[in-house]
């Protein structure tokens, strides 16, 4: 079984996000970039399935600028068999990303596609669902446990009410939640080995995918600063202050 894993590069979760002074976007110069944490979980799950003998090949995919190659090498160092880099000027919006994945599915014929439930940069949480619809295959989103038996995936999902377990027929799309697993540490010798693993480069324009980037971002702004609090001496003063503001 072949597994396709989405592996997006985002601003590292430890970095304090800064909006560019002109409001045109988020500053990325000199900023640490790394794999979307949900995608790391997706890759880890795929690798575990391979180690269990369920899968035979894990392919990591990223859609992004030319310098994202080093990022894909990390995915290979973690253990993926090979990588596909769809070179695009910037990361696309979910519909475009889903269409690109559909193209790759046609080419690669995977039995399973594992994506992060969302990327921590735009927090869209759409690509997996859109891809399942376009592909006309089942989806199991927000997975916290995945078991594969034959042509069926039994997936425990994190839903508002607790946990829900569903079975989907393969091929299918699974999106990962935080508790699915804890990604492994990359070992130093594996970084060296990753340098010789196959990395295929495809040009976005040459894929013949219609862009679904219909949203235009007009302006970025940091959240408004919280205004200074007021210290009150006792309950009476608190009540007076609330009354003064018409809250009581």
């Amino acid at each position, binding site marked *: 079984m072949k597994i396709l894993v989405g592996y997006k590069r985002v601003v*590292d979760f*430890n*970095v*304090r996000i*800064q909006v560019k*002074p002109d409001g045109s976007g988020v*500053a990325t*110069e*000199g*900023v*640490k970039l*790394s794999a979307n944490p949900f995608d790391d979980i997706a890759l880890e799950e795929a690798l575990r399935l391979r180690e269990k003998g369920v899968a035979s090949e894990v392919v990591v995919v990223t859609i992004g600028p030319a310098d994202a190659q080093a990022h894909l090498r990390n995915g290979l160092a973690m253990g993926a068999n090979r990588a596909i880099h769809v070179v695009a000027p910037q990361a696309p919006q979910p519909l475009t990303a889903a269409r690109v994945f559909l193209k790759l599915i046609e080419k690669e014929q995977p039995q399973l596609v594992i994506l992060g439930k969302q990327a921590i940069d735009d927090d869209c949480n759409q690509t997996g669902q859109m891809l399942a619809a376009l592909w006309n295959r089942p989806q199991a989103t927000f997975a916290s446990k995945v078991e594969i038996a034959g042509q069926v995936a039994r997936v425990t999902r994190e839903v508002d009410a607790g946990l829900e377990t569903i079975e989907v027929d393969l091929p299918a799309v699974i999106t990962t939640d935080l508790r699915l697993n*804890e*990604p*492994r*540490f*990359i*070992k*130093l*010798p594996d*970084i*060296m080995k990753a340098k010789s693993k196959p990395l295929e480069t495809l040009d976005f324009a040459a894929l013949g995918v219609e862009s679904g980037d219909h949203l235009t971002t007009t302006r970025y702004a940091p959240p408004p600063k919280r205004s200074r609090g007021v210290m009150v001496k006792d309950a009476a003063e608190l009540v007076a202050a609330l009354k003064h503001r018409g809250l009581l």
Partner: protein
Amino acid sequence: MSERESMEYDVVTVGAGPAGLAFAIRLKQVKPELRVCVIEKASTVGAQILSGAVIEPEPLNELLPEWGRNPPPICVPVTHDEFWWLRDKQRAWKLPTPPQMHNHGNFIVSLGALCAWLAPQAEALGVEIYPGFAAAEPLFDAEGAVCGVRIGDMGVARDGSHKPGYTQGIDIRAPLTVLAEGCRGHLSKRLIAKFALDRDCDPQTYGIGIKELWQLPAGRVAPGTVVHTIGWPLDPATYGGSFLYHLDRDRVAIGFVTGLDYEDPMLSPFEAFQQLKHHPRIRPLLEGGQIVSAGARAIVEGGYQSLPKCEMPGAILIGDAAGLLNVPKIKGTHQAIRSGMLAAEHVAATGRAEGWDARLRASRVVDELRKVRNIRPGFHRGLWLGLLNAGWETISAGHSPWTLKNRADHAALRRVDRFQPPLRDWVERTLPPRDRLAGVYFASTQHDEDQPVHLRVADTTVCLTRCAEEYRNPCTRFCPAGVYEIVGDGADRRLQINAANCVHCKTCDIKDPYQIIDWVTPEGGSGPNYQNL
């Protein structure tokens, strides 16, 4: 336990800073067949590098003659130097700029960004760079010579047990290990002690530099302007001063260095820096701006007379791991790059550590230190005699027949009961950060809380007895990240180490008066994630 994996190289370099990268680049330029790797504890190259920084470009010109065509992302030519004495919290006098501090022809850079820019150029030459891996221990062969480094294990819990993701660190073996860890490197510290490399020199001395990068409202910044100050908020007995560098795109880098030979146990270098920002010469510039990134790092100040022997069986020291910073110039990057290149040429020619110390000492790197050797220790007698002495040493170009002594920083603190603290006319602060925790936020520092504490205090009973009495726990003040706290009352009173806040500046390792704090590497990739510092 399974056999530990290992990898073999011709040379292993510890630290992807200017010295280590210059070494690796030069080595590949002159002897491309050698296999060299660079181990870096930060998760990406440059993320744990902090410097002013105004650099002299000459060594970079020699290393990469074409560098100007594709300059590092922050690289602003210096247009103008200013030197101010802040008399008190209100007044400031402009002084003539000392000759060493003339920066015509130099560039203001972010040293972190510069290293991140150097790394791919090294990789293009075949250097293997491994960020996110901490060189935790030196390896020794049967004869006792250094033969590589051991990478720290990943996935170890706070109590030392192995977590599910536990990954054993590998051994990197090489006939030659190059220590380019920067100031107070923890492997360098251990090896200097083991091989008694500092037997014939003065103790090393240090300063603590704290820096912030600010984004300001449009129109305030004069790109290329370099301002240094001395005086307030420090008293004349304490060595230190500020730097303020105007970058491009409405950004300034501001920082403050306090000599770690300060005597007042109640002094907080962090607070001194925050005070400085509120001087009327500086405050209007920053007001309304935003901090982009902030952090702290110890710097080497000992110079010529504190330079240890820079070679030992199987390993050499370069850059600030050796201690090559030029204090009057307040610059070490050119020295780091030059020493790295020189070491590469030595290694290419001989393949060994032997002879490196003599070669370094015969070079202009050490000659530069020798000429200014008396300037920094001259400030032991206070600011004014220090400036007079600096004037004499500058005019005489270091030809004084004497060499002033350096003394260990940790021994400089005075006991609270025998010390009259100077009056500090410090002001109420309004500019961010509010306190050290707010400051740490701008360092984006990250450590998995469930890992062994990487600040090892040999004997914590001292903290509540002798230290509390003699120095009132100076660790709670000298740490710029608020790592050390005394918490609880009565019998529950204890030292709490907030290791997750650590920004790897090494001040505690240096200044702790009993020398019982040992900074060791946390899990690889942990620590600050600086942006353009």
